[in-house]
């Protein structure tokens, strides 16, 4: 059985009732299966079942998703390096809302993410008599200027300030865990390589150096493939 079929059997075998009562897999189920299939990251069968749950169903309404998209684009406007659309930030809001649904998460989707939209709407309504989605970017920025900074001590705005911080966190974490975000960050690892110390020019930049005594004991990468042998006192001789 190939991976896709084994995932299918795990999911069909367990999600059970709703699917097995159908005579065959509907096109919709097929799409959902493909969605789980898209993520290939070493899941156990229990985890696959959880992912299936998280990747199916709908938490936010289309209007709410549009509002999140608008907010996210103001928090992190697109530029030549990348944008929140390519980083999948709005999708991440939807997934996290369904994923953070264990008792320990205390209804994060409802009490934090959706609550954020409600509170931002309230402020927009008080100020401009319309929901956030209907406000112009300039109007939204007037609101954000009040709730985006931690030094605003206005008691009436503390909840909004806390929730805005979550939205900012979600947008940035979504961006910088995406392919384009990691590229922009400049992270160079997660790839087989041979570490042979800090590049000399970097050592120079920071005016630091390796002790000779220390470095002499470190691995000689040209001999890493020679099988280790020791003398009886534990001195490496290969």
């Amino acid at each position, binding site marked *: 059985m190939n991976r896709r079929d084994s995932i299918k059997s795990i999911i069909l075998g367990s999600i059970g009732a709703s699917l097995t009562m159908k005579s065959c897999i509907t096109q919709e189920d097929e799409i959902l299966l493909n969605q789980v299939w898209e993520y290939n990251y070493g899941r156990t069968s229990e985890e696959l079942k959880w992912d299936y749950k998280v990747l199916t169903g709908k938490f936010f309404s289309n209007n709410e998703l549009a509002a999140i998209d608008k907010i996210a684009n103001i928090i992190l406007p697109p530029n030549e390096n990348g944008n929140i659309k390519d980083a999948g930030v709005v999708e991440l809001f939807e997934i996290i809302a369904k*994923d953070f649904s264990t008792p320990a998460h205390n209804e994060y989707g409802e009490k934090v993410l959706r609550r954020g939209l409600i509170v931002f709407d309230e402020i927009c309504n008080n100020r401009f008599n319309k929901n956030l989605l209907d406000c112009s970017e300039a109007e939204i920025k007037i609101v954000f200027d009040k709730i985006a900074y931690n030094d605003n001590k206005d008691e009436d705005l503390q909840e909004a300030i806390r929730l805005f911080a979550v939205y900012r966190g979600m947008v940035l974490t979504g961006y910088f*865990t995406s392919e384009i975000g990691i590229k922009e960050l400049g992270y160079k690892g997660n790839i087989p390589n041979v570490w042979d110390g800090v590049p000399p020019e970097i050592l120079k930049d920071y005016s630091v150096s390796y002790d000779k005594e220390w470095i002499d004991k470190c691995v000689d990468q040209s001999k890493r493939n020679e099988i280790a042998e020791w003398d009886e006192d534990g001195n490496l001789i290969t």
Partner: protein
Amino acid sequence: MEIIKSKKEYDVIVVGSGAGGGMATKILSDAGISVALVESGPYFDPANPEQQTQLKWPWESPRRGAGTNRAFGDFHMSYGDWSLDGEPYSSVEGTSFKWWRSRMLGGRTNHWGRISLRFGPRDFKSKDFDGLGENWPISYEDVKPYYDKLDKLVGVYGTKENMFNEPDGFFLPPPKPRLHELFYIKGARKSNVKVMPSRLSVLTKRINNERGICFYCGQCDRSCSVYGDFSSSSCLVIPSLKGGKVDLFVNSMVNEVMTDNNGRATGVSFINKENGRDYKIKGKIVVLAASACATARILLNSKSKAHPNGLGNSSNLVGKYLHDTTGAGRGVFIPELMNRKTYNEDGVGGMHVYSPWWLDSRKLDFPRGYHIEVGGGMSLPQYGIGWNPNEFNKFFGLRTGGYGDSLRNDVKKYYGSTVYLSGRGEAIPLKENYCEIDNNTKDKYGVPVLKFRYKWSDYELKQVKHMHDTFEEIAYNMGGIPLGTKPTKKDNYGISVPGEIIHEVGTTRMGNDPKTSVVNKYERLHDVDNVYVVDAAPFVSQADKNPTWTIMALSMRTSEYIISELKKKNV
């Protein structure tokens, strides 16, 4: 209910496939002894692409690696963490214990930090120095030959330092320090804190043709697909299966050791988690390696006419003297490390340098010592990165928060500028800290669960207070600013919750006197001559040294003893 019995009688049944059980399986089966290895979780091989998480990117997880299903994030290689569905445990009111369970072939050795430290001569005889706790009935000299064999068999990098109580071994060469580690070296030396290359079971050099060499992805916690780090699954159990002497039972939860009318063990019973049915298998010898608390639970649940108090529990000490490593940590912001030029500094999974215990506790207000672990660097982003993109602005009198394009630069500016210092110390084992059977609660398999009672004493609290003083001093000496506020007495000096460091040991402690200990110096139950314990349950104390290396050395020693007993037909 129908119970399925196998007719075959194994020479040895090993319960659990982690560090202790994996080693016993290898040593015994290599000697031609037939072994039934019973593991509560599924088969796991880090080289299996279906199970592999190594080299995955955060976006390959729908939640970007967040810790919903795995406490340390989606890519961390442990099936199970401090909570398991349908398998609860509790703590006595006013106390707290967190119990980590990795249910998979290889157990916790798939995710562990690979810190591989030998206990020193003093660690086996601490009572002689401070009058606290109990001495081991064996000494460093008894274990040294096994540490030596282990170094060569499994591989560990490090350096010969000739330091008192930090024995050297047969080391592979260590990797060079990273940039933030050079800052740590500078700060630690200025604070008169010893600093040296770490000792990790990662292959910086080839040790045989079966295992690959480290390719520096920094992800040992995901278990290495080329077997470049040590996991019991990849390096002990899977090779042992090829010898034809091992029958592996996976997804099989052992609930009881069976005994005959004379009280000797005859085998084990287990529940197959896939079909829910009960099985019994027979063995001449039973070796328990389910992890300290799970082993205690099996023993306490193995009640019979001959052992009304649970198997091996005539002393009433099974479950007692439970102790975990103490832990405390502090982040340090290093302004000099802002705006870094990026390059690949993943290195090995974990620190390249650390500080072993460097002081004499007779001159301090707490017994025993701790070591300091160092983390940091430009590591692979995961869920959470950028959450407070510019909180360090506060150190420059700048506003924090905001929105807009400047946030991109804030994240990049502070990336890789934080160093984490973690203290890991030795606790004094107390009889009053224990796990016991909670007769009112059963798990989803119908087996009574554990209840814990664990409280730190003043010794541990004073120790972590000292850790925090040291962290601050080193932080300033490395040109950094310690983050947050230093915890005070009110918050127990920020000490970890017992169990959080995942070094719980001591529940069947070793000794010569059957009244004050559960197993003898060969890890055999005093009460029954054919049941052994080779996980961390026999530990009398655990130094500030991570327990895995000693679990394996002792398991090797016990396994050789079992081989000699079988040869002498004593069993």
